[in-house]
């Protein structure tokens, strides 16, 4: 059941990513090809998701845009996770630096994440690198907080003390004892950050502060679509659905991985279906009655 959920979510994400990366070979239309005669056409066999106000194929654009969104999401999730984990581990384990680090993090968290990213992009300019930097900066304080609190919890477990008394060094304790035991919050938080970054990128592009409008991204598509929402709703519906599916899959994947990585989950025996259990119990009790 749990495994099925994870596989479905991961499957959707992988198919979307592969489709997007290989899109230039198989898409019938180019995502940037302008067809002035085909403006704002509805759904048809020729244009599956219709066309936009320049006559570009929406299906091609939606698929191609996934590439950008995934790249930004992954980059932000990866950098924020590595940074957040390192700072969180140090902060949670060494009480002396904890106070200083946490006050800095608190200061960063006082700004709403999106607003912080917005300000940074406005200051640095709207390139892909700048968006990644801005979103990493906006997301890593929360990551740090989550990891730190997980470390604090693990730190007071007895096996840490046991490691100290057996002469294990602090570096080994931090990476062999603490880190594996905070891996589930790290993974969950990483997938959520991934999802959040995709949403934030869309939001930034929607506000016109994202990646240059010439590159198709879901945010850019939505931004362009808003003028035509009443006459051509497919322009906003399809990129919107793409965002929802991606973010939902990521969240399901994160939750599933957390449950899967719990060491207390026994792998040996599979649960029986409830009905078979009841049946077994009944046959056993009747057996005994006969005896």
């Amino acid at each position, binding site marked *: 059941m749990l495994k099925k959920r994870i596989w479905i979510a991961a499957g959707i994400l992988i198919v979307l990513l592969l489709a997007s990366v290989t899109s230039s070979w198989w898409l019938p239309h180019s995502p940037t090809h302008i067809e002035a005669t085909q403006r704002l056409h509805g759904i048809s066999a020729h244009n599956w998701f219709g066309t936009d106000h320049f006559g570009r194929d929406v299906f091609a654009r939606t698929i191609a845009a996934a590439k950008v969104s995934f790249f930004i999401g992954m980059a932000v999730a990866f950098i924020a996770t590595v940074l957040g984990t390192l700072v969180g581990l140090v902060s949670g384990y060494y009480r002396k630096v904890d106070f200083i680090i946490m006050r800095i993090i608190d200061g960063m968290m006082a700004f709403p994440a999106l607003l912080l990213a917005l300000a940074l992009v406005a200051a640095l300019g709207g390139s892909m690198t700048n968006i990644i930097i801005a979103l990493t900066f906006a997301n890593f304080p929360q990551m740090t907080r989550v990891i730190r609190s997980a470390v604090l919890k693990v730190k007071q477990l007895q096996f840490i003390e046991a490691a100290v008394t057996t002469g294990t060094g602090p570096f080994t304790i931090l990476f062999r004892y603490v880190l594996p035991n905070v891996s589930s919050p790290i993974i969950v938080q990483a997938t959520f950050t991934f999802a959040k970054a995709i949403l934030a990128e869309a939001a930034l592009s929607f506000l016109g502060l994202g990646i240059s409008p010439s590159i198709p991204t879901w945010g850019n598509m939505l931004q362009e679509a808003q003028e035509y929402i009443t006459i051509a709703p497919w322009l906003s519906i399809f990129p919107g659905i793409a965002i929802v599916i991606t973010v939902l899959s990521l969240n399901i994947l994160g939750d599933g991985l957390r449950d899967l990585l719990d060491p207390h989950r*026994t792998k040996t*025996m599979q*649960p*029986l279906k*409830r009905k078979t*259990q*009841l049946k*077994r*119990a*009944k046959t*056993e*009790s009747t057996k*005994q009655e006969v005896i």
Partner: protein
Amino acid sequence: MLEVNHLKAYIDSSNGLVKAVDDVSFSIKRGETIGIVGESGSGKSVLAQSLMQLNPSPPVFYPQGEILFEGKDLLKKSTKELCALRGNELAMIFQDPLSSLNPIFKVGRQLIEAIQSHKKIAHKQAEAQALQLLSDVGIHQPQQCMKSYPHELSGGMRQRIVIAMALSGEPKLLIADEPTTALDVTIQAQILGLLKQIQLKYKTAIIIITHDLGIVAKLADRILVMYSGKIVEEGTAEDIFYQTAMPYTWSLLRAIPSLKLTRHDRLMSIPGQPPNLVSPPAGCNFSPRCPFATPQCMDTEPELTTAGDHHKKACLLTAQAFEESKHRFEQKQPEEV
């Protein structure tokens, strides 16, 4: 008053079907104390919770059996009827007194609410009754105690309050699930004394569930020994301790580090681990760990049979065979000096 007949409580877990309580029967009379002894995983807590119908269902279900309380089957009662019974007729005390009190309300408020849920009386009267209950359970300054939050009190005090709450409906049957395990020995003695005192005063029947044979030796009139979901021996305290008829009870008694032994005596340990309740061993559940097991024990499951006046055992060995095996065992392993 309470009669349990062939009760089975199974748990539907992700690892398979756990036979936590497997064909258990016993009864308790008014004013009597029954001790249920068993190790962790023997199903004693599930049994206690079944009596109160507190087991979450699912995963727990009852494929067979009945729990007759004053002639009526608790398994067939509706939630509403059960609610009326719990607290009024049946009450339960848990192991951890801190988690059985609500941490955000003062003790007085919780106690008054408990009283008012049983009887429709004015707040003033309920308060007077609460004070009376608190002094009944041996609290020096009930007024002050009413105004405290649970975390401000010591473990012993908390357990006294939990007992006071359990008593608020003047129950006919009190089920105490490891009531003193979380407490210090000096406090434990006080709480056990308190339970006895309450029993004398209110004529309450008490079922005390514990892993500590020392507690039941003092408190219980009759003892049920549980092993892997089954009752393996049942009898008066004297029967169990002096006329032990079953190898598990016998081994358990010899495994206790008693004050009678000196440091040069070697404790008799029971080899192996308690059985897995999902796939219990074939035959007698205790046979893989039993020092006297015969080939027959490995494939025939013993039934609870009479071993004396009120004494029952679930063991295939005859009394004589058991005596002989004990004798042989002691000769083979002379006490180390």
